[in-house]
């Protein structure tokens, strides 16, 4: 459970930092007749959707860190041999990264009111997302054709399961992205559209980061890293 615990420490640190700024030492029973509200009056507060996405990403991160915890704990058993990574995964990673860049560009251009460029970038990002999913399916087929079946070995099982879970999250993101594309198809892009696009981009960057960690995990680099940490600790 080490990965999950490390993740938890990170979350608790963030929560603690936030709580430390909430006047937890104030004495509310002595503060009457005034609002004593620290929230800013002048500038608009962060939109709830942004905070909501942040909290959701924390939940997703918890999910994947727990999968990784399970991966490391199961790895300790003797029947484990690692799965070779199909080379198409490199291409997929590049496509996912491209999608991330495109969404970022879509956000920036939407903010500069270059609506058409932004729309093109959004559709390109959608295509990149679909291409990534197709690439993942090709990777699965390549593996199973080579005889690495789901139930043969725990490493295979983990690869299919976790990459599948990641794919499902990408699929969910594609649904959201499609909605944004449909909504911003006509008319000038307002503040709301920019926000939606930025949120999509944030989600994409996050899922890219998750994928990079997972890819490192499956390729075995993460093991070397963990081994290094272990040596440093002992």
């Amino acid at each position, binding site marked *: 459970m080490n990965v999950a615990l490390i993740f938890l420490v990170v979350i608790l640190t963030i929560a603690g930092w936030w709580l430390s700024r*909430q006047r937890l030492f104030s004495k*509310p029973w002595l503060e*009457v*007749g005034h609002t004593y509200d620290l929230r800013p009056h002048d500038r608009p507060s962060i939109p*709830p959707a942004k*905070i909501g996405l942040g909290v959701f990403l924390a939940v997703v991160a918890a999910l994947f860190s727990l999968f990784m915890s399970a991966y490391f704990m199961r790895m300790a058993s003797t029947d484990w041999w690692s799965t070779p990574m199909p080379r198409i995964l490199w291409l997929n990673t590049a496509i996912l990264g491209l999608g991330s860049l495109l969404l970022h560009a879509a956000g920036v251009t939407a903010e500069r009111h270059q609506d058409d460029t932004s729309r093109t970038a959004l559709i390109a990002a959608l295509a990149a997302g679909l291409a990534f999913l197709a690439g993942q399916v090709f990777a699965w087929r390549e593996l199973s054709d080579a005889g690495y079946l789901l139930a043969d070995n725990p490493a295979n*099982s983990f690869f299919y399961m976790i990459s599948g879970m990641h794919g499902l999250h990408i699929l969910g993101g594609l649904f959201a992205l499609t909605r944004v594309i449909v909504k911003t198809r006509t008319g000038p892009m307002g503040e709301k559209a920019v926000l939606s696009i930025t949120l999509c981009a944030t989600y994409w960057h996050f899922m890219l980061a998750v994928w990079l960690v997972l890819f490192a995990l499956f390729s075995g680099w993460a093991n070397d890293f963990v081994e290094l940490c272990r040596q440093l600790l002992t």
Partner: protein
Amino acid sequence: MVDIRSGTGEPIGPAEVEDVELYHPHSWWTRYVFSQDAKIIAIQYASTAIAIGMVALVLSWLMRLQLGFPGAFAFIDADRYYQFITMHGMIMVIYLLTALFLGGFGNYLIPLMLGARDMVFPYANMLSYWLYLLAVLVLVASFFAPGGPTGAGWTLYPPQAVLSGTPGGKDWGIILMLSSLILFIIGFTMGGLNYVVTVLQGRARGMTLMRMPLTVWGIFTATVMALLAFPALFVACVMMLFDRVLGTSFFMPAIVEMGEQLQHGGGSPILFQHLFWFFGHPEVYIVALPAFGIVSDLISTHARKNIFGYRMMVWAIVIIGALSFIVWAHHMYVSGMNPYFGFFFATTTLIIAVPTAIKVYNWVLTLWRGDIHLTLPMLFALAFIVTFVNGGLTGLFLGNVVVDVPLSDTMFVVAHFHMVMGVAPILVIFGAIYHWYPKITGRMLNGLMGHLHFWVTFIGAYLIFFPMHYLGLIGVPRRYYEMGETAFVPASAHTLNEFITIMVLVVGAAQIIFLFNLVWSIRHGREAGGNPWRATTLEWQTPETPPRHGNWGKELPVVYRWAYDYSVPGAPEDFIPQNQPGSAGLAPEGAS
């Protein structure tokens, strides 16, 4: 009272609070069925939870009938008995307690207590309920599936959960159970995001975190914990589903079943236990923290006194929330862990008793010299304190490895966890329903039926679970379908078991009175008015009772004080609502 910091008392316009765009329903369907109003969703959540809870209640009757009168009921065979146990536990913990506290009270109270119009993401909130309902339906479907529901115990430990010896293991039971949990978790995440972001972003002007009622603190912290803990159950469920359906070996070691070598091999059952209890222990506090919060508010309101040590109460809630993530393996003392782990987890388990004890002391000190009104909510709150202390103390026994090992598989554990996370939170739920029912319906619940319900439930619960400690101490094992001829169990234990069973039937019947009261009082209850308990918190200050869609009139409330201004010296009344500006009330006004 010298360094009191009172402001100028000038009312501050609510303009700074950004109004949420409210969804306006156009038809009966979108208003009452596919509603996006948190109050309707709360009632939907609560009704569904209570309905499925009644199923779990009947299951406990059946299970107790077998224990009290073994063999007297032919249809309760060993398989059915295990199915009853499993479903009773799972329903009560997840589908009743979690759903009712967070989905029910969370939805109803968070927006109202914080002075918001609604949750921040009403659509996701609606989806959350419908996914919960779907999860419940999938769970119920397992009763009708071939082979019946799973009988693996509510902890669903592999490998037995997916083997043919366990009811539902090779049939649909376990698959439906795991699918239902996965649906529940997805649905809860949607609701949970709402509760958290509403607390962060939806508070009315002046409602600082340290002015929130403890109910909201409890629900908020519990939700954060649930959002971090439920993924562990999700992972465990997905992996077990893979093991069961696709033949992987995450949790399944090499097994010979009925002389046949299964294709599984090398998996780790302990891995499941770690994942399960990484969720399972925080789950105890996910249920307990909202109860702590609610009970604080009930005691303060009905003792007409400010809560003792508000800051300490908030800190204790946060600290308990954080600590509860590093105690999970105390459920695994008998699972074969490194002994040093046992030492570590026993220590953290005992440390968590400190903030918990602080809370108990603060409740008692709030009562001290208070103007105690023995209303029904107060009776339930008092009963909670007694029961919780009781169950908590046996928790200290079981937290020690050396004491836990001999007691782990006995009725002592059953008595402990029913006291601390069964009876205690349920008492709070009852108290909370008696307390907020007037706001939800505009009418009071019937007092006579209420008192009957309270005394039978409270005394009955003690008569059920107190003797169970004794049964456990003399070694009566738990999980057994029947004891048969056992040398160390005296005949008197069987008599005691019969007595417990009869009490279970009586207490269960008392809940029917309660349900009847809930329905009867909607039409025939006494008119309550807007603030029957003369409480300070915002939900009692709404312009209409029951509150309309949007909760508040044209303007959102502005908060000028904390939630516990009861019996303030010099004030004209013994309570000052949170939205009352400073000029009214306090004697030392203008002193600063």
